């Protein structure tokens, strides 16, 4: 099996299990929310149900980022600097986007 094929298999596994985990987390958060609203219970999970759903959304956003990180690690391990450089660059740009958003959040409104 070639190295590229191994990387594709690793990425496929990451996306498959990651998507299910993120979806299940979001689903759990909303299911608890609906149960609480329907039966008048409060915080069955012990902490705000919306936080559980938000964690699932963050997991979903992180999945493509983790795929780039996985590619970077595989390229570095294989000594393939020609592809490790673009992978590192993409990660840096994604991180910059998050930092820009965070700075906008801290900026006082008009």
């Amino acid at each position, binding site marked *: 099996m070639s190295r*590229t*094929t191994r*990387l*594709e*298999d690793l*990425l*496929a*596994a990451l*996306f*498959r299990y*990651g*998507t299910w985990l*993120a*979806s299940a987390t*979001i*689903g759990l*958060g*909303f299911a608890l*929310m*609906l149960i609480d*609203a329907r039966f008048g219970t409060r915080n069955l999970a012990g902490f705000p149900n*919306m936080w559980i*759903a*938000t964690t*699932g*959304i*963050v997991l*979903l*956003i*992180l*999945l*493509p*980022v983790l*795929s*780039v990180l996985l*590619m970077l690690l595989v390229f570095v391990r294989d000594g393939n600097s*020609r*592809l490790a450089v*673009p*992978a590192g*660059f*993409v990660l840096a*740009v*994604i*991180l*910059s*986007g*998050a*930092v*820009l*958003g*965070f700075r*906008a*959040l801290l900026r006082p409104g008009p």
Partner: protein
Amino acid sequence: MASGLMLWLFAVSVAASALGGMLGMASGIFIVPILTMFGHIEIHTAIGASLISVIACSCGGAPRLLRSRLTNVRLAIVLETATTMGALTGVLLAGILPIPFLYFLFAAILFLSAQQMLARRRDPSPATIPAPDRPWIVALRLDSSYPDRELGREVSYRVHRVPLGLILMFGAGLISALLGIGSGVLKIPAMDTAMRLPIKVSSATSNFMIGVTAAASAGAYFMRGNIVTAVAGPVALGSVLGAIVGARVLTIVSNDRLRFLFVIVLVALGIQMLFTVFGVHL
């Protein structure tokens, strides 16, 4: 938020992703117009939810395409340098550009999508393709092959005009961040026409890339508070389910009939968006 609205968001996302999945598109092109015009959700919140939907569609479809070796991950990471830079530029511009301009741009992209839907995609003829003119295409080993089940053999292909592809990908990333769409409508023609990749490879590689591009802007939208869990959560769940349903329905529905239906929906949404720009409410 009322559970009725959450169920509506979930149902709309299932339908949008199923429709999109049938023709290899992410659902963002439908999600934003529906949420803003029918759900009366603020456009930046709708864009944030749509980016989550794009990531869900991309991640949900990626495993099958990666295992079938249709996705060229080496080419994807090279092109992602341009799409993520475009997305970062889009994030910076999103807060500056006036909202009517965003609606107008969205209407233009909807009409472009309808036009591309009508134009049939064909694999480039190998006889007309010149040899790669950049030694680094060979150095990065961007050329590859994939097993074609219909032909029953391995199909080799060459990657062409990477610099032109990078320029087009920057534009695709910019539009993706501004409008919250996957920009497959720009990425796939860039790979089909400019880079001369086989259709199956460009579709699979685009699917892989739209998730990374959307994640680049979704991080910023999330940090800025534009990704509202009560809206984005049901949209994400609906998109995962819709993408699975769409891929299954794809095998049993006539492609031409579906294409015609799509064009009508895209043009109708485009006209509705233009009405919004000019303050006309039906």
